[in-house]
């Protein structure tokens, strides 16, 4: 990616239609992000089918605008009603709500917008600077490396399944198994199609995502719905505490520079790790910010620094996640997983080809990322106080619209009722996965990366005439293999070391 290509793309993106779709996406993203229970993933999943009717620049403008805005807008409800709008805004409620109770709600909302913009913009600059060298490095990748790359993505997802590693593995394997439906990628044998023509092309990824994160999420919200809690929350939303000024002073801005730059760096790195999203980045950055702060005692009690650090980190994740997606074809989070599906629908494949065959559209995506940050900064600052009104929407109002939009969106993909059926089955599975505490991330990743894993693993074995040593004799694949082993062994090793330390401590005490 040369500067010339990027600036050409930036100039070409400054058309009325692209700007309109960026603002539209930003508006929808703000609504979705601000309303607790609606996530950026749900919004992107529902809107993706709609974007196929637009020119690809306009479609991506809407999706990217929505994504960036939804992440920053998650902080609005975190600040005003102490309920994070998206999982990534959890740390913003620690200090943001306390600031609001102190009568500094306007400033908290302003800090949220400004530092989300700074985090987002810095991460996009990193995306622009580092994606080309990473993509260039992947030129030497062949089938063995791509199969291990897919396995690495899956292993990361399982490793961060928290206490549910076993359940994460089950769903990861189930996702890969589901990806084997359809024609065999090497020999074109029909697998698990049971005579259905619709199943010949396999299970479409986007209807599954729409179902799982749309109606599935609605069902789960209905299941966990508590009328008295909802009434209390709605009452809290009606309380109007004075919001005060929105912009920080120059002195405040200067004091926040170093901690937020550190948070941005952490957010970008965490975002680049497959499956580690904004929530992880926000929690780690907030915790580290507290450790490094001159006033750690203020964290959690209305610290401007705590809020700025969390706001910076959760939007900085976006650029990191995009870097992994654009260069390696591995989603950094569930939103980038859907964007991969979207790019595929437009006939593009994330990875090195985005930097060779589709370099101009890659430049457009980078330009849209920068513009999306500018748009939500303008939108967020001008509507900071108005945005509080969004919170008056009750959950059941959203349920009907989401359910119906999921049906319409999944049908509109291919004018095919089969996709609607897939969407609805995925919704039911998504609901049960959530109830039984199965993390859905590994399933999504398994479905998305399953084909990449199988096709490349078998292609690698064709290359080596069935000799499995091909995976250890090539330096890049050996490196990836070591990473995968480390990822799987990391948690058990950590537990073993902790147990040994405890045992040693106890024996020392006894002595």
């Amino acid at each position, binding site marked *: 990616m040369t500067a010339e290509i990027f600036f050409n793309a930036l100039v070409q993106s400054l058309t009325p239609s692209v700007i309109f779709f960026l603002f539209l996406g930003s508006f929808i993203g703000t609504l979705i992000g601000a309303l607790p229970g609606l996530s950026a993933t749900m919004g992107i999943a529902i809107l993706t089918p*709609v974007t196929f*009717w637009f020119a690809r620049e306009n479609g991506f403008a809407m999706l990217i605008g929505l994504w960036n805005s939804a992440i920053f807008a998650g902080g609005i409800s975190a600040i005003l009603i102490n309920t994070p709008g998206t999982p990534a805004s959890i740390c913003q409620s620690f200090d943001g709500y306390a600031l609001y109770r102190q009568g500094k709600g306007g400033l908290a909302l302003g800090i949220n917008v400004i530092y989300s913009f700074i985090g987002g913009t810095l991460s996009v600059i990193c995306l622009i600077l580092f994606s080309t060298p990473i993509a260039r490095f992947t030129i030497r990748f062949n089938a063995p490396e791509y199969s291990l790359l897919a396995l690495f993505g899956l292993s990361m997802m399982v490793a961060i399944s928290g206490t549910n590693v*076993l*359940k994460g*593995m*089950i769903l990861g*394997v*189930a996702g*890969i*198994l589901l990806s*084997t439906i359809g024609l*065999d990628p*090497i*020999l074109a*044998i*029909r*697998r*698990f199609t049971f005579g259905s023509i619709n199943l010949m092309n396999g299970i479409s990824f986007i209807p599954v995502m729409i179902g799982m994160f749309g*109606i599935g999420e609605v*069902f789960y919200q*209905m*299941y*966990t*719905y*508590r*009328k008295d809690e909802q009434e209390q929350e709605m009452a809290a939303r009606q309380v109007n505490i004075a919001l005060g000024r929105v912009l920080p002073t120059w002195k405040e801005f200067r004091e926040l520079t170093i901690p937020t730059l550190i948070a941005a760096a952490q957010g970008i790195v965490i975002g680049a790790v497959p499956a580690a999203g904004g929530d992880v980045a926000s929690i780690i950055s907030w915790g580290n910010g507290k450790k490094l702060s001159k006033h750690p005692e203020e964290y959690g009690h209305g610290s401007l620094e705590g809020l700025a650090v969390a706001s910076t980190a959760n939007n900085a994740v976006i650029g990191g996640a995009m870097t992994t997606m654009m260069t390696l074809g591995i989603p950094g989070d569930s939103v980038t997983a859907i964007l991969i599906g979207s790019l595929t629908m437009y006939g593009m494949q994330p990875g090195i080809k985005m930097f060779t065959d589709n370099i101009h559209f890659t430049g457009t995506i980078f330009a849209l990322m920068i513009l999306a940050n500018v748009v939500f900064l303008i939108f967020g600052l001008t509507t900071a106080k108005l945005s509080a009104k969004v919170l008056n929407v009750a959950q*059941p*109002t959203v*349920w*009907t*619209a989401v*359910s*119906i939009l999921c*049906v*319409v969106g999944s*049908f*509109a993909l291919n*004018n095919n*009722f089969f996709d*609607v*059926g897939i969407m*609805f089955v995925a919704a*039911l599975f998504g*609901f049960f996965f959530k*109830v*039984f*505490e*199965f993390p859905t991330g590994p399933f999504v990743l398994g479905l998305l990366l399953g084909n990449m894993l*199988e096709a490349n*693993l*078998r292609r690698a*074995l*064709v290359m080596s*005439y*069935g*000799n499995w040593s091909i995976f250890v004799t090539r330096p890049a694949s050996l490196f990836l293999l070591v990473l995968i082993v480390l990822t799987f062994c990391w948690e058990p090793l950590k537990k073993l070391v902790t147990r040994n330390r405890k045992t040693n401590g106890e024996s020392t005490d006894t002595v």
Partner: protein
Amino acid sequence: MRNEKWYHGDTIPGLITALFGYAVTIYTIIEPTFTWKAQTSDGVPGGGFFPVLLGLLLGVLGTVLFVKGLINKGSVTYFQLDAEVKSNLIKIGKTTVFIVIFFIVWQSTKRSFPSFIPSIALLSLVLNKTFGRSLKFNLIYTSVLVLFLYVSFVVGFSVQFNM
């Protein structure tokens, strides 16, 4: 005191996963086109390689989850069925049934008359009623939503819902 039963916790999901995994493995083994090795060259996996491996892995992981559930003696109960949860589950059941009925009506009548928009309006009314919304709210909401769907998808994007 918690009523601990063997079928609480992860035993049932574990059992279902294990049975599903082993069923996939057996089906793949007995299906003649799903070969472990390709016919083209020695050592190269065939079309059945991945499904057998994944089915078996799923079966083993499901068994581990089932055994873990048994060892924990149902100390985790996912469906805590108090009155409100029961009422919520009934709402989920009703929503599922209404959506399925909508699918049937839409698909069975689409050739005789353009049934999608009337059916979706009916679905919106029924869902809002299920979620306890007032009649006035329901009518306004449904009108706005259906108008939006008609203008954007039918007129704007020319989606052929009745094909």
